[in-house]
């Protein structure tokens, strides 16, 4: 496969393509009265911002002001770059920056019958809702079996996803929770491991699919932590493939994965129009310089 000399990265600006941008409360700075009103359920005098206040909408919801979201974005981005083991920081970054992208995803889901089903039934993927033992008993080559193999190989569990805290809309909170939980399934479908290389590839794929700014940021800044050899592989093989796959594939948020575990993986990938992973030539010391110059 010829290496591309230039990577063309069209980035869809989700804000311009969303059907209806509902203006959320322009509450810049919360006051102490607001916090006491959550807990006490009583008015603490007439607050000028009373009409803009949103109480907690779901369990684990932490109402935040614009200022706090900005601080959280900066802080979580800084920590996520410096300490890649802090997955919760990447999650927080996704929540604080993803409001408009999530609205666009929700519109896409509402336009699709399976997406509507998912939004109404709200399935969750964790060890309580998905029977991993049953998946292990499936024949080799099926989606469910490959998923469990992938979990075992990479030593991860579907329970390690942080709950949503900073999204101020209940349905969008479910959308981002769903996105987080099917992230591992994306890994399985794309055949990528959980090392930094695989994560950057999947993030780029997701950035194209979902339009979430956090995915784009992860795909752009994640490679900073890699060696030059890995970055070469990313730039020349993985990223272009991820971008192509992202555009060619159907909207993967509209797939009811729990009902398709028994299907063979290759057929599922063909149905979802996900191309096979790229063939990366092994860069041994003898051919590294030759490949690198191409």
């Amino acid at each position, binding site marked *: 496969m010829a290496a591309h000399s230039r990577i063309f990265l069209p980035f869809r600006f989700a804000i311009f393509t969303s059907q209806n941008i509902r203006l959320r409360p322009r509450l810049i700075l*919360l006051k*102490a009265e607001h*916090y*006491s009103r959550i*807990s*006490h359920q009583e008015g603490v005098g007439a607050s000028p911002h009373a009409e803009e206040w949103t109480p907690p909408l779901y369990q684990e919801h932490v109402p935040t002001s614009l200022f706090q979201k900005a601080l*959280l974005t900066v*802080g979580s981005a800084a920590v996520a770059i410096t300490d890649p083991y802090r997955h919760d920081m990447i999650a927080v970054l996704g929540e604080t920056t993803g409001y408009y992208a999530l609205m666009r995803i929700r519109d896409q889901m509402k336009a699709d019958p399976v997406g509507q089903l998912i939004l109404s039934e709200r399935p969750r993927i964790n060890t309580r809702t998905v029977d991993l033992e049953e998946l292990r008993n499936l024949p080799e080559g099926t989606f469910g079996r490959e998923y469990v193999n992938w979990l075992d190989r990479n030593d991860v569990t579907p329970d390690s996803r942080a709950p949503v805290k900073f999204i101020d809309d209940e349905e969008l909170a479910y959308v981002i929770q769903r996105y987080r939980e099917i992230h591992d399934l994306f890994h399985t479908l794309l055949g990528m491991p959980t090392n930094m290389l695989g994560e950057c590839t999947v993030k780029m794929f997701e950035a194209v699919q979902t339009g979430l700014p956090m995915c784009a940021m992860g795909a752009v800044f994640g490679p900073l932590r890699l060696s030059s050899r890995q970055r070469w592989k990313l730039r020349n093989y993985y990223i272009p493939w991820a971008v192509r796959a992202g555009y060619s594939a159907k909207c993967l948020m509209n797939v009811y994965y729990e009902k398709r575990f028994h299907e063979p993986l290759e057929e599922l990938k063909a149905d979802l129009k996900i191309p096979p992973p790229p063939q990366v030539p092994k860069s041994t010391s003898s051919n590294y310089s030759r490949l690198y110059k191409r």
Partner: protein
Amino acid sequence: MAALRSVSLRVGRICRCSNRITVSRRNLSEQTSSDETDKEEGTERSTHFGFESINESEKTGKVHEVFSNVASKYDIMNDAMSLGVHRLWKDRFMQVLDPLPGTRLLDVAGGTGDIAFRFVNWIKQKEQQRRKTSGAEFRLNPLETDESGSDTGLPSAEDYLYSEQRGDLSDTEEKKDSKVIICDINQSMLEVGKERAKKLGLEDDLVWVTGNAEELPFPDNSVDAYTIAFGIRNVTHIEKALCEAYRVLTPGGRFLCLEFSQVSNPLISSVYDLYSFQVIPVLGEVIASDWKSYQYLVESIRRFPNQEDFAEMIREAGFRMVTYDNLTSGVAAIHSGFKI
């Protein structure tokens, strides 16, 4: 009881700790229902947990949970939230206490050991100074120093007073007489403190005890100084903790409390409120992955009585010469009282 309640302003109350009649400046009729009447009714009292209302029986457990969660990042968060100013506060606290060598200190809610480490270093420094100025000659060996004493063989007054405490008074043993016991209800905080002590090389000088400030596992009249830094606002019944402090102190002992307090200056207060509610929980989320614990922290600060009210509570527990010093315009305050 109703007749007594209707009397306002200055009323003599029998302090429950010292059995001494204290003149209370608080308006009795304003007091919320006392413990006695509630025990008769048998209802569960509710108390505050930050801005939430919960049952009193739950509060200790919830506070315990908060501190178990924050223990590992406690010191980093303190530095981040106060921008290092908490170190200055604690240094000032130790200057106010100004302990002499030979003081037995009980540091309650001492968790990660900040006050205790400062105490040990202070005593060591004081002893070094004393050695430099006095030449370190005094009382090396009690058998040899009887030139100025009586020659009848009876012990001098000094010997009598100090011999039980000081044993054979060599230089190295002198600093062991200054004792510090760190007491905390939460074992995780104590573990973090022990690790820090090991790193600083102070592990031999400290004793770590698990205990509740409302029911201290120490005998009466056993410590010379009782300190509690940023711990008393987490106690469910502050009056009980104050009474316990009174109980374990020797007569003449000092109660010293460092705690967040109310800022009276409205300009500084608005900046402080903004910073507390907007920035601190965000720092908690980013550094310690724990928004809720740091939200509890800033709310519990708002719920704590102001400087005057807390000083009144200390007086009601029986302490005298109760004073307070504001730090950073009232963000923190050092309250001091003596058991005399």
